[in-house]
C-alpha cells in the first residue's frame, strides 16, 4: 500500500506506490506467470514430444532462457522504477519504441484474453444444475430423439460449439453478438476493474487469492484424479519417456517457446510489477523462485491432467466395449451376461464361424475399441479446458462440486494473468505526467477496461472464436520474440553489461554471478534469434495460413483457408507492434535533430 511514501521532495520519483511486502510482489509474479498455459499447453506438449523425456529439454531451456530473461526484466523494472516505456527510455532514448511495442502487445492480449474468463464464468454459472447441461444432449423438436448435431458429436462438444459459442461454419459468416457471452464478458471486465481499481493497493491483496487458490484446487483434483478408475493408465502413458523424440528439433523449439511464453516475458508486466518494489529488494532470488514455481506448477498440472485423461479414456473405452457387446447381443439374440469384456474376442471369433453372413453384415458397425487410441487424442487450448475436462467431470460423482472448483480455478488463473496485462498498460499511463495529473487512476483504469470490453465484443459474435484463434496465434508470438531480443541486446550492449552489473550490485548488495552474465550476453539472444528464424521460416514454408472451422452438419472440425481480410488483420497485428521499435528510434532521432538545429539557429 502507501507504506513507503517517500518523504524526499524533488528527487527522481514522487511518492510511488509500493507493495506492502515482498511476498505480495512474488505472489503477483506467480499469479501472472502461472496461467492457463500451464494447465492446457504444457500437458499437450509433454504428450506430443516424448512424455517424461520432454522434461529434459524443458529444464535445459529453463536454465538457459527462462531464469536469465526473467531476472533481467525484474532487475530493469526495479532499477528504473518506471513502467516499460519509461524504463527503456532511461536505458536509451532511442529505445522508447520497445516500451511502446510492449504496451501495444499487452493491449492486444488483454483484448482477447478476458474472453476466456467470460467462458469460464459461463461454465461456472451453468455448473449449478443437476444434471450438468453438457452431460446430456438436448431433445429435438418432436421429442423422438436427440438433436442431430449432438448425435453426430458428443454432448460436451455440442455444449461448447453450439450452446456456448454458437459458432458459425466459417470466418466469413460473422453472425450476431451473443448476448449471453456479452454479459459474461462485461462481468469479467468488471471483476478485472475491481481488482486494478486502486493500483497496487488493491492488486496486492487480490494476488494473495489468485496465486494460492489454483494450488488448492489442483491439490484437490490431484487427490480426486489419482483415485479415479483408470487414472493410472493415463499417468503411465504420459510418463513413459519416448527418448527418440529428443532428436526431433521441434521438441527443443517447443520447450523453448513454452518457457518463453509461459513466463510472460516482453509484455512489460514484469517490469511494471518490479517497478513497485523497494529498490533494495532481492529480485535475483525472486526471479529464481518464480521461474521454478512456474515450471513446477506446469508439471503438477500435467499430472492432474493426465490422470483425468486416463479416467476419460478408460471410461470411453469401456463404453465402446459395452456398445459392441450390446450390438452383438441384440443381433444374435444371445442371453444377457453371456458376453463380457473378457470373453469378447473369443465370442467374436465363434460368432464369425457359426453365423458368417450376419456377422459380415454387422462388421462395419463393430468398432475396434482401443485404449491407446483414446489416450492418443492429444488436445490443447480451449478444447482441453472446456471440452475434455468437462467430459471427465460429468462422469464423476458429485460432478457439480468438481465443476465449480475447476472453473473457479480457471477464473483465478485467468484473472491473475489479466492483472499483469492491465498493469503493463496502466503503469506507463500513470507514469506519464500528461495523463496522470489530469485524471485520477480510477478513471484511467475505467477507460482502459471500457475500451477493451467494447472491442472484446467482437469475440462474442458467432465467428468470434475464429478471431480469437487469430489473436491467440499471431498477436503476441513474433512480436514478443523481437521485443525480448531487443531488450537483451539493449541491456547488454547499449546500456552496458558492466554498468548494469554495478547497478545491481548497488541495489541488491551482491556480486553478479558469471552464469547470469554469460546467459544474458550470449546464450539467451542466440536462442531467441534461432526461435525467431524458425518461426519465420515456418510461416513462409506453410504458404497459406489455415484454420479449423466447426462443421455442424458433420459434427467435427474441418480445415479452411483464411480469407484475404483475415490475413490482412494478421499482418496488421504483427506489424503494429514490431514497427513500434524502429519507429520509436526514428522519431527520437528526428526530434533530437530538430532540437539541435533549433539550438544551433538560436546560438
Amino acid at each position, binding site marked *: 500500500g502507501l507504506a513507503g511514501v517517500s518523504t524526499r521532495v524533488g528527487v527522481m520519483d514522487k511518492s510511488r506506490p509500493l507493495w506492502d511486502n515482498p511476498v505480495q510482489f512474488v505472489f503477483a509474479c506467480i499469479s501472472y506467470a502461472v496461467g492457463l498455459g500451464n494447465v492446457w499447453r504444457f500437458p499437450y506438449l509433454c504428450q506430443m514430444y516424448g512424455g517424461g523425456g520432454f522434461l529434459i529439454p524443458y529444464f535445459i531451456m529453463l536454465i538457459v532462457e527462462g531464469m536469465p530473461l526473467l531476472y533481467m526484466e525484474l532487475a530493469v523494472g526495479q532499477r528504473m522504477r518506471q513502467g516499460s516505456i519509461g524504463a527503456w527510455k532511461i536505458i536509451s532514448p532511442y529505445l522508447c519504441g520497445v516500451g511502446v511495442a510492449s504496451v501495444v502487445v499487452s493491449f492486444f492480449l488483454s483484448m482477447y484474453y478476458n474472453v476466456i474468463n467470460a467462458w469460464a464464468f459461463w461454465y461456472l454459472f451453468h455448473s449449478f444444475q443437476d444434471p450438468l447441461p453438457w452431460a446430456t444432449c438436448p431433445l429435438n423438436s418432436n*421429442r423422438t430423439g436427440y438433436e442431430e448435431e449432438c448425435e453426430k458429436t458428443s454432448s460436451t462438444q455440442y455444449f461448447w460449439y453450439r450452446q456456448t459459442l454458437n459458432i458459425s461454419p466459417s470466418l466469413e459468416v460473422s453472425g450476431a453478438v451473443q448476448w449471453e457471452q456479452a454479459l459474461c464478458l462485461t462481468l469479467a471486465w468488471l471483476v478485472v476493474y475491481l481488482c486494478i481499481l486502486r493500483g497496487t493497493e488493491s492488486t496486492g491483496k487480490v494476488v494473495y487469492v489468485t496465486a494460492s487458490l489454483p494450488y488448492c484446487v489442483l491439490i484437490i483434483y490431484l487427490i480426486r484424479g489419482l483415485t479415479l478408475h483408470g487414472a493410472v493408465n493415463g499417468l503411465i502413458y504420459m510418463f513413459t519417456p519416448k527418448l527418440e523424440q529428443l532428436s526431433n528439433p521441434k521438441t527443443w523449439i517447443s520447450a523453448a517457446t513454452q518457457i518463453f511464453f509461459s513466463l510472460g516475458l516482453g509484455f512489460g508486466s514484469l517490469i511494471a510489477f518490479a517497478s513497485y518494489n523497494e529498490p533494495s529488494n532481492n529480485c535475483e532470488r525472486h526471479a529464481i523462485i518464480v521461474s521454478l514455481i512456474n515450471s513446477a506448477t506446469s508439471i503438477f498440472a500435467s499430472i492432474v491432467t493426465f490422470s483425468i485423461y486416463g479416467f476419460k479414456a478408460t471410461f470411453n473405452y469401456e463404453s465402446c466395449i459395452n456398445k459392441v457387446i450390446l450390438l452383438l447381443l441384440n443381433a444374435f439374440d444371445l442371453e444377457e451376461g453371456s458376453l463380457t469384456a473378457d470373453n469378447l474376442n473369443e465370442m467374436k471369433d465363434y460368432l464369425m464361424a457359426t453365423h458368417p453372413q450376419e456377422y459380415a453384415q454387422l462388421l462395419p458397425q463393430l468398432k475396434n475399441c482401443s485404449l491407446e487410441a483414446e489416450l492418443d487424442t492429444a488436445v490443447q487450448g480451449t478444447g482441453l479446458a472446456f471440452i475434455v475436462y468437462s467430459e471427465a467431470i460429468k462422469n464423476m460423482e458429485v460432478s457439480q462440486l468438481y465443476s465449480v472448483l475447476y472453473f473457479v480455478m480457471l477464473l483465478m488463473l485467468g484473472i491473475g494473468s489479466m492483472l499483469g496485462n492491465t498493469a503493463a498498460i496502466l503503469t506507463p499511463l500513470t507514469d506519464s505526467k500528461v495523463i496522470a495529473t489530469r485524471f485520477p487512476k480510477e478513471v484511467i483504469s475505467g477507460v482502459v477496461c471500457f475500451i477493451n470490453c467494447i472491442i472484446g465484443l467482437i469475440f462474442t459474435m458467432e465467428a468470434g472464436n475464429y478471431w480469437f484463434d487469430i489473436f491467440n496465434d499471431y498477436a503476441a508470438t513474433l512480436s514478443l520474440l523481437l521485443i525480448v531480443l531487443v531488450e537483451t541486446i539493449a541491456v547488454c550492449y547499449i546500456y552496458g553489461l558492466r554498468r548494469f552489473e554495478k547497478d545491481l550490485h548497488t541495489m541488491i548488495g551482491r556480486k553478479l554471478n558469471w552464469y547470469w552474465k554469460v546467459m544474458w550476453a550470449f546464450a539467451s539472444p542466440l536462442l531467441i534469434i534461432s526461435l525467431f528464424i524458425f518461426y519465420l521460416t515456418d510461416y513462409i514454408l506453410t504458404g497459406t495460413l489455415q484454420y479449423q472451422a466447426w462443421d455442424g452438419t458433420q459434427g467435427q472440425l474441418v480445415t479452411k483457408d483464411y480469407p484475404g481480410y483475415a490475413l490482412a488483420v494478421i499482418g496488421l497485428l504483427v506489424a503494429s507492434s514490431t514497427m513500434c521499435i524502429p519507429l520509436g528510434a526514428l522519431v527520437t532521432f528526428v526530434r533530437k535533430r530538430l532540437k539541435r538545429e533549433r539550438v544551433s539557429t538560436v546560438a
Partner: protein
Amino acid sequence: MLQVLLLTFSVVTVAHAELCKPDAQNAFKVRLSIKTALGDNAYAWDANEEYLFKAMVAFTMRRYSTKTTTQISNVLLCNVTDRVSFWFVVTDSSKNTTTVPGSEVEAAIRMNRNRINNAFLLSDKTLQFLKISSTLAPPVEPSTPVWLIVFGVVLCLIVAAIVFLVVAGIQQRKKKNKESTERENLEEKGEVTITIENGIPCETLDLKAGHINGVFSADDERFTSL
C-alpha cells in the same frame, strides 16, 4: 370327431404361425434387458411373464379404443429367444384370421407405454418395442434459467464492491485536500510572526525556494535493507 378337432386345431396353429412370425405384417419385435435393469433382482422370463405381457397388450388395446374387445388369446407371441426378445401380433377379436393394423397397435402402446414398463419394472430403454419410438421426457426447465440467477448475484456483488471502493477513494481524496489546505492556512498564519535564524528569515529557508543537493538524497538508496 377327434379327427375334426385335430384338423381344426392344426389349422388354427398353422394360421397362428402364419400370423405371428418374424417380419410378419403388423408384427412387432420386443426386446427386454432384465438383467441390465434389475441386476441381482432380475426375474426369469417364463410362461407366466409371457401371460402377463399378453394381458398388458390386451389391456392396452382395450384402453386405446372402447370398441375393441381384445382377449388375451388374441395376442400371439412367437420366436422367444434367450436374449429375451420375441415377436408379437394382435389378431382381430371378431375375426381370428386377420391382424389389427400396426398403426393402431403402435398408437395404443405409445399411449400406455408407462403402464407396460411399470408392470415389468423396466424402462423405455430396457423394454424396447423395436419399431415404436418412444417420446423422450424433456428435462425439467425452470422458468428463469439458473445461470442467470447466479450471474445476477455475482454481478450485484461486484458492482457494489466497485461503487464502495470508488466512493471511498473520492472521500479519501477530499480528506487529503482538506488536510493540505488546513496546513497551508496554518503556514499562512505562521508567516505573521517572522522567525529569524542567524539573521536569515525562515521563509527563505523554505524548501520550495531552496536547492536540493541531489547527492545526499540519492544516498538513501545505496544502503541495503538489514
